[in-house]
């Protein structure tokens, strides 16, 4: 109990005090609004819906299959199917969502919806500055829709894989169509 440990401890804090003036490892704080950490490619925050082409409502990949709504742990997704079908990128007739709402007050950003979606339609966003002046916590289809270019920008690796797979499927479908013109016509 002679105080040597205390002196050792004081030396330790002194090292950090002096270090904070020249060593970036001793001053790890980021001055947030002016200075931001480089975005992380895999980071996920809230879900969004990917659309192809120019028109968000026409190009939505979502087919209202409701798998995400079933699997959502917090049950925050509400989907109402449209009554009519529209052709998708392969030319197949699919349903489309009339209503697609996500209650962001309930969403826990787990990413299970994006994981189970078989149409690569729902993906996880990377925005984190989500505070707002109103309580618009229920995001509608129009709020959620974001272009594929945006998806490519935030998750380049994953988007490239998705695009390649979709192009491959499209190519196969076209080849099939070419081989079987009769089937295609009907």
């Amino acid at each position, binding site marked *: 109990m002679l105080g*040597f440990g205390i002196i050792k401890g004081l030396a330790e804090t002194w090292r950090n005090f002096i270090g904070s003036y020249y060593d970036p490892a001793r001053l*790890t704080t980021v001055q947030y609004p002016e200075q931001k950490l480089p975005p992380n490619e895999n980071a996920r925050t809230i879900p969004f819906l990917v659309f192809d082409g120019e028109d968000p409502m026409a190009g939505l990949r979502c087919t209202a299959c409701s798998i995400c709504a079933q*699997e959502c*742990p917090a049950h925050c997704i509400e989907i109402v199917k449209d009554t009519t079908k529209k052709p998708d990128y392969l030319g197949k007739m699919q349903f489309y969502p009339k209503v697609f709402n996500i209650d962001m007050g309930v969403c826990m950003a787990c*990413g*299970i919806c994006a994981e189970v979606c078989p149409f690569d339609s729902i993906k996880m966003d990377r925005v984190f500055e989500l505070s707002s002046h109103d309580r618009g916590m229920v995001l509608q289809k129009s709020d959620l829709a974001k272009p594929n270019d945006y998806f490519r920008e935030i998750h380049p690796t994953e988007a490239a894989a998705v695009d390649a797979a979709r192009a491959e499927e499209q190519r196969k479908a076209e080849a099939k169509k070419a081989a079987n013109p009769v089937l295609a016509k009907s």
Partner: protein
Amino acid sequence: MMAVSDLQTSRAGDSAGHDLLEVSMGPHHPSTHGVFRMNVVLDGETVVKLSPVFGYLHRNHEKIAEKNSYLASIPYTDRLDYICSMTNNWAYVLSVEKLTGLAVPERAEYIRVIVGELTRLFNHACLAGFLLQDMGALGTPLMYAFREREKILDLFESLSGARMMCNYMRFGGCRCDLPDGWLEQAAKTVANFDSFLDHFEALLTGNEIIRARSDGVGVLPAALAINAGVTGPGLRASGVNYDIRKVDKYGIYSRFDFRVPLGERGDVFDRYMVRILEMRQSLKILEAAMRDIPAGAIIDPKAKLRNLRPKAGEAYGRIEGPKGELGFYLISDGSATPYRFRIRPPSLINLTVLEDMCLGHTIADVVIILGSIDIVLGEVDR
């Protein structure tokens, strides 16, 4: 062998004629680590009775899980012990794997060990920080611990997408493979952690005030610790050699060469020291795991994430979480949702002996004893 008699729960004795002071510590008290509450009866500053009150954070996770699919419960487990989501995931998927008989590919096992040990590292470091905060050290050790924790959380973010609520493991493997360069980054972090520990110990271990505060405070005898089901570093600080990584050898822990540090007296200082020594052992495991990790698949091809319907039956799986034995008891009735989903929370059960450890000590000791038990209220109240 120890002769264990029936250990009666100790209740407060009389006060020898003094007027007693009854203080309600918590749920909004700075050092109850959340919304924990203790009704403390004091004689002067000495504790003569202490009864814990729980439930302020209760959300009936078990009932929620009974209504959700097996997959949808994984993000909920993140929120149990919200500091160590990776190990919570692991315990849960381990139980589902026992229930379904899924195998885990080699690479996924290695990844699990790596993220699990990283979790243990920052949990223990932060605990030492919180403990010093409870002793009144104004956050300096906590900030140093958080500085290192940030580096590990960055790794978790680039791996799983989230820093704390990782939702990373899946029954039969893991959700996604390691990104490029992740292992190198992790190896760097682990290499730095050793020198961080040296400096951390220079700040804390030899400090006379810490020694005076923690020596002989909150002694937990080994026999009581076993009987009361205390697990984790708290048990090993009392000198009981029981580490589930060694006993059950779940995953691939039998391949790693590490030792289990054991305490001498079972007081607060031992609980702190055992955690420091455990971190050093974890570093050894991490180095070996990062060296040996093979390439390959990361999830069992038979694993079916959606609509999993295990055969009717039950399974209890447990791991050595950073706070103690974290177990999940699952009963399946053959449907897509668990029939019964039970969490064995180490934090709650380690609190059983809180009163025994605190009696006769002062109110300042109650705080550090609670701090040395290492509880997270998300897990205590579920």
